């Protein structure tokens, strides 16, 4: 088969272009992916910019509009022109995008300003109108009264028609003015018609009252008071004996006449006016008889005088009720400045007297006073309690004076009163009988006070001892005044300098006696034992360098005290010796004078202790010296890092570096410092010298100097180490949580100022929150100095470590010591605030419960509310004591369910329950006080105080207490064992605040019913705790320190 030619190939249409795809880079793809974010960010940026612009715009324009408002305050037209011109000019310069909004704002401002000006103008006009009108009305009334008063002294037949004439004239005047008001004010809607009518009625009433008063006054003057009162009686019964006639030519239907009639006819109105007339008449009458009453003038200082109501001596026991005190000061206005002062004084007196009780109860424990003022008040209170208002010789023999002085001695406090009393003039002035006798009395007082049991080491005037040694007192007693004067003169003529010189010469270089005395007095016996008890002789602080304070090394004290310092101490000893001896050259080392030497030694020690001597090792020449208040007494050992930071800061802030540091390069100064840090004996020395003034925290202030060979540089700022704890700051918030927040805020604020710039501007940025929470958590751990310190590793001081850590977090790369002042600020803030909490914890005078309560409710924060609270409680009991929906002990403030027995703070309501007189208290703390007293009165602690039957000793079991306390003691014991961890045979220490607190809290809960108590107060209510605690304290104090004494 043959194949024919067949077409195999057709024409193809051109195929496949390469499709066009828009070229797009990866960056562009990413950009597109982020388009929504970018758009949002752009929007935000736009909005922020707009907000910033308008903020700025607003501030600028606001100031300008404010100017206009001042300038055109009452000139609406001027205002309009000014704001229009200003707005137009301003709008021209506003960017187009903001024009609409700016225009709207300006329009609104302009409109407001114009409205402001017109409103002001209108108000001003109206005010003027009303002021004029007020004046007019007032004048009308005054004129009428004046007219009537003129007739008071006239005879009745002239006076009464005269007064009536004035009255009707007054009425017509009211009519006239009322008409004007209606036309000018009511018609123009400036005054409501109702107000207008009220005004007319009031004016008419006032006129009727004036008429009545003047009629009474006239009657009283012309006849007597009874006549006047009779007239008023009739007047009130709608029978006016001297009715006023309508003046001629006046229509009877005149609206004002009608109104006056209507008011008079209305029983209520007439009664009211009658009473007003009587009131005015009484006022006149009293004034005429007694003169004007005066507001009583209360002098607080007079009230504080001995035996007056605010005298501290009247507050023995420290539980004086404030209401009682206030009731004794009549005329004291509640809430006035004086009132607050009185409340404060009462609180203070109570508090001080409670301290007195505490110190009397436990004489051996030295009380830790908050401040010197309290201590002085405490001393005054003790003297006042013993009836001593001013120390006198005559007190010397009295028991009370001796008691007081013994208490002072136990607390190692020599009161200012005694010191002042013992001040004498110099020996030359005793030339007459009177002054010699007075000297004798004081010398006897000195003799008594300076005995070893009381105050042997006080710096008394040496004249006393010398006079006693030379028998001056006997001479005075024997009336041999001329010999006494001669002896006193010889003492005065004694050459102290010569004597000191002689005594110093006597002191051999190698004085074995002195060394022996020194050793014997300073060496610590049983040093090893003491070391483990962490005990230390308190003189070590003054005699040894900071590095030698470890007690158990002091067995060879001579070698420990730096020779220089020892020399200075020796000369102080010699000075004391010279003061107490007589004659030009006393043989002080004779064996007979051992007692004298001991006394001089003790006085030297006392002087060192009282004036704060101590050894300063940072001195110009590097040799330790004895100085007053050395740096380490105030701030502890000197730290190299602190020196570095302080010098660096000073260097950086000094403008003229060359003249001060002789260089502009920090490296050179740093080099010197390194020499000092590496070897303290090298040519560079650092000295710290005390200034003569104290710093803002009441601490000694110091200057730091750097000595390089002969050159020396003193830093400008006072030197203070980083992170030192200030324990006197009381201006801290009330709760721990607040302390933490407050501290965090303060630190964060400072942190933001310096390091904040490294963080994004956004206020809510996560990094800022993170830093904030680091700070907060750091503080929350209560001791932020938890960062370990590795000995020998040169790191930043422990106090600032957490903050240094934060600086690192935000990117600080340099030497941390260079930013120490920033870090120090943070540490100081934390320190200052946390110290309050610390102080509370460290205070040995507070029981555990008190510590918790004190830290929540510091006393100084509650002084003023205390009184308010008392009033609240009292009112509560008075309102509710019969409200049986509340539990008995709750509604009566008698939380411990004691029977009435005229307890302190008991309200006199005579409330009987189940045949028993149930006490109702002004404050629940009084109930606690009563219960504690009941419990203590039945114990052996009060053997010498009262005759109450004694059921147990000072540490009874719960069983014993409840047997005495409650009729149904079984229910008590069952509840005790069910709800607490105590057993009926557990004992309670009655003198221990903590034990008593637990007992009382249980009693309160039990008496109120546990469930009811929890419903009302919750399981742990700090307020209830505070109340119980106060009750216990007041009960303890009420025994005035006599508990358990024989």
């Amino acid at each position, binding site marked *: 088969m043959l*194949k*024919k*030619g*067949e077409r195999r190939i*057709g024409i193809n249409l*051109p195929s496949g272009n390469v499709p*066009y795809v828009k070229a797009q880079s990866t960056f*562009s793809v990413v950009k597109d992916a982020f388009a929504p974010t970018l758009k949002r960010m752009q929007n935000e*940026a736009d909005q922020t910019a707009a907000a910033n612009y308008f903020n700025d715009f607003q501030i600028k324009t606001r100031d300008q509009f404010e100017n206009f408002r001042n300038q055109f305050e009452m000139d609406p037209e001027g205002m309009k022109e000014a704001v229009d011109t200003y707005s137009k000019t301003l709008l021209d310069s*506003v960017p187009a995008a903001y024009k609409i909004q700016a225009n709207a704002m300006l329009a609104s401002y302009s409109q407001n300003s114009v409205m402001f000006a017109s409103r002001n103008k209108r108000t001003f006009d109206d005010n003027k109108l009303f002021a004029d009108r007020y004046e007019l009305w007032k004048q009308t009334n005054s004129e009428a009264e004046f007219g009537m008063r003129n007739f008071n002294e006239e005879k009745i037949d002239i006076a009464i028609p005269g007064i009536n004439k004035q009255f009707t004239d007054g009425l017509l005047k009211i009519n006239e003015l009322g008409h004007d008001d209606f036309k000018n004010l009511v018609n123009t809607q400036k005054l409501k018609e109702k107000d207008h009518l009220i005004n007319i009625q009031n004016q008419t009433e006032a006129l009727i009252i004036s008429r009545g008063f003047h009629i009474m006054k006239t009657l009283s003057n012309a006849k007597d008071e009874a006549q006047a009162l009779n007239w008023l009686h009739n007047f009130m019964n709608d029978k006016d004996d001297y009715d006023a006639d309508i003046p001629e030519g006046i229509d009877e239907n005149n609206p004002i006449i009608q109104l006056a009639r209507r008011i008079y006819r209305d029983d209520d109105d007439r009664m009211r006016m009658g009473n007003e007339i009587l009131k005015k008449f009484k006022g006149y009458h009293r004034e005429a008889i007694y003169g004007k009453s005066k507001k009583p003038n209360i002098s607080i200082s007079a009230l504080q005088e001995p035996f007056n109501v605010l005298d501290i001596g009247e507050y023995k026991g420290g539980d004086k009720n404030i209401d009682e005190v206030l009731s004794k000061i009549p005329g004291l206005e509640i809430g006035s400045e004086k009132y607050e002062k009185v409340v404060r004084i009462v609180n203070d007196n109570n508090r001080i007297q409670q301290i007195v009780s505490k110190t009397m109860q436990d004489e051996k424990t030295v009380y830790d006073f908050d401040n010197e003022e309290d201590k002085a008040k405490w001393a005054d209170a003790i003297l006042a309690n013993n009836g001593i208002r001013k120390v006198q010789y005559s007190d010397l023999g009295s028991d009370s004076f001796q008691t007081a002085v013994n208490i002072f001695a136990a607390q190692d406090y020599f009161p200012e009163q005694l010191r002042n009393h013992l001040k004498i003039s110099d020996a030359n002035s005793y030339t007459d009988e009177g002054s010699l006798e007075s000297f004798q009395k004081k010398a006897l007082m000195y003799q008594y006070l300076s005995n070893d049991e009381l105050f042997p080491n006080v710096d008394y005037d040496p004249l006393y001892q010398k006079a006693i040694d030379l028998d001056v007192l006997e001479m005075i007693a024997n009336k041999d005044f001329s010999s006494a004067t001669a002896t006193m003169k010889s003492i005065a003529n004694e050459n102290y300098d010569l004597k000191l010189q002689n005594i110093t010469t006597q002191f051999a270089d190698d004085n074995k006696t002195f060394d022996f005395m020194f050793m014997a007095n300073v060496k610590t016996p049983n040093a090893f034992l003491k070391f483990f008890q962490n005990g230390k002789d308190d003189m070590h602080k003054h005699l040894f360098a900071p590095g030698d304070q470890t007690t158990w090394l002091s067995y060879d004290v001579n070698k420990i005290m730096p020779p220089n310092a020892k020399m200075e101490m020796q000369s102080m000893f010699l000075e004391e010796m010279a003061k107490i001896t007589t004659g030009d050259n006393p043989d002080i080392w004779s064996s007979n004078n051992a007692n004298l030497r001991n006394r001089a030694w003790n006085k030297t020690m006392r002087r060192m202790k009282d004036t704060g001597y101590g050894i300063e090792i940072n001195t110009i020449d590097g040799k330790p010296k004895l100085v007053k208040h050395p740096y380490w007494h105030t701030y502890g050992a000197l730290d190299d890092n602190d020196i570095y930071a302080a010098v660096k800061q000073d260097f950086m802030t000094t403008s003229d570096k060359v003249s001060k540091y002789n260089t502009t390069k920090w490296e050179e100064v740093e080099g010197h410092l390194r020499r000092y840090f590496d070897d303290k004996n090298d040519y560079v020395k650092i000295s710290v010298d005390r200034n003569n003034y104290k710093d803002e925290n009441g601490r000694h202030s110091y200057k730091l100097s750097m000595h390089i060979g002969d050159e020396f540089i003193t830093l400008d700022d006072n030197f203070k180490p980083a992170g030192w704890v200030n324990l006197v700051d009381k201006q801290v918030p009330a709760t721990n949580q607040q302390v933490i927040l407050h501290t965090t805020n303060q630190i964060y604020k400072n942190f933001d100022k310096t390091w904040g710039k490294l963080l994004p501007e956004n206020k809510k940025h996560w990094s800022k929150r993170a830093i904030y929470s680091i700070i907060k958590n750091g503080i929350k751990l209560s001791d932020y100095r938890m960062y370990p310190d590795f000995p020998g590793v040169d790191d930043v001081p422990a106090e600032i470590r957490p903050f240094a850590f934060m600086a690192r977090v935000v990117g600080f790369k340099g030497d941390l010591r260079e930013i120490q002042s920033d870090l120090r600020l943070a540490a100081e803030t934390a320190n200052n605030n946390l110290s309050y909490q610390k102080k509370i914890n460290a205070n040995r005078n507070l029981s555990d419960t008190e510590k918790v309560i004190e830290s929540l409710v510091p006393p100084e924060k509650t002084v003023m509310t205390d009184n308010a609270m008392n009033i609240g409680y009292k009112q509560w009991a008075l309102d509710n004591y019969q409200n049986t929906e509340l539990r008995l002990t709750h509604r009566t403030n008698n939380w411990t369910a004691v029977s009435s027995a005229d307890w302190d703070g008991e309200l006199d309501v005579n409330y009987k329950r189940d045949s028993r007189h149930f006490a109702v208290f002004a404050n629940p703390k009084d109930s606690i006080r009563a219960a504690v007293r009941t419990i203590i009165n039945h114990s052996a602690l009060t053997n010498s105080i009262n005759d109450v039957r004694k059921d147990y000793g000072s540490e009874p079991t719960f069983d014993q207490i409840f047997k005495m306390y409650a009729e149904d003691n079984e229910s008590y014991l069952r509840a005790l064992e069910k709800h607490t961890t105590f057993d009926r045979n557990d004992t309670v220490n009655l003198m221990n605040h903590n034990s008593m607190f637990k007992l009382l809290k249980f009693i309160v809960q039990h008496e109120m019913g546990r469930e009811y108590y929890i419903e009302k107060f919750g399981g742990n209510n700090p307020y209830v705790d505070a109340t119980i605690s106060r009750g216990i304290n007041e009960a303890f104090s009420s025994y005035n320190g006599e508990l358990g004494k024989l």
Partner: protein
Amino acid sequence: MSADPVTMFVITAVSTAYDIKESKKQAKAEAARYEEQKKQARLAAADEEARRKREYYATLASNKASQAGSGFTLDSRSFLNIQQDVTDTFQKDIASIRVNVGSQVSQLGFAQDVAASQRRKEQFGGWASIASAGVEYKAKKDLYDA
């Protein structure tokens, strides 16, 4: 990062500049691709021609063999006519192939020109948009600073 005008301008400008660069790269790649396609079209046409030629010769030979087997004389008119038909068809096919390839190549050339022109537009547009963004963000910056 904040979305201030300067930053935003930088982002836009950088992104557009990269787009331009990408567009240039794309244009180059496109041109190469079109050239390749033209080459491929020509090669395919040559292949097709060769295949058609083989077929043609095979047909001619097969016809000759059939003719010899069936007794046709070699100068038989009808046989020669058939052979001529085969040749004619073959020639037409070859012409078609050549027309096809010519048309495809010119189409590709045209498309290539269009694409290149589009890319040029794209690049110019890019530069123009950078300039316009500059103006826009400058205005915004002024507004922000106002």
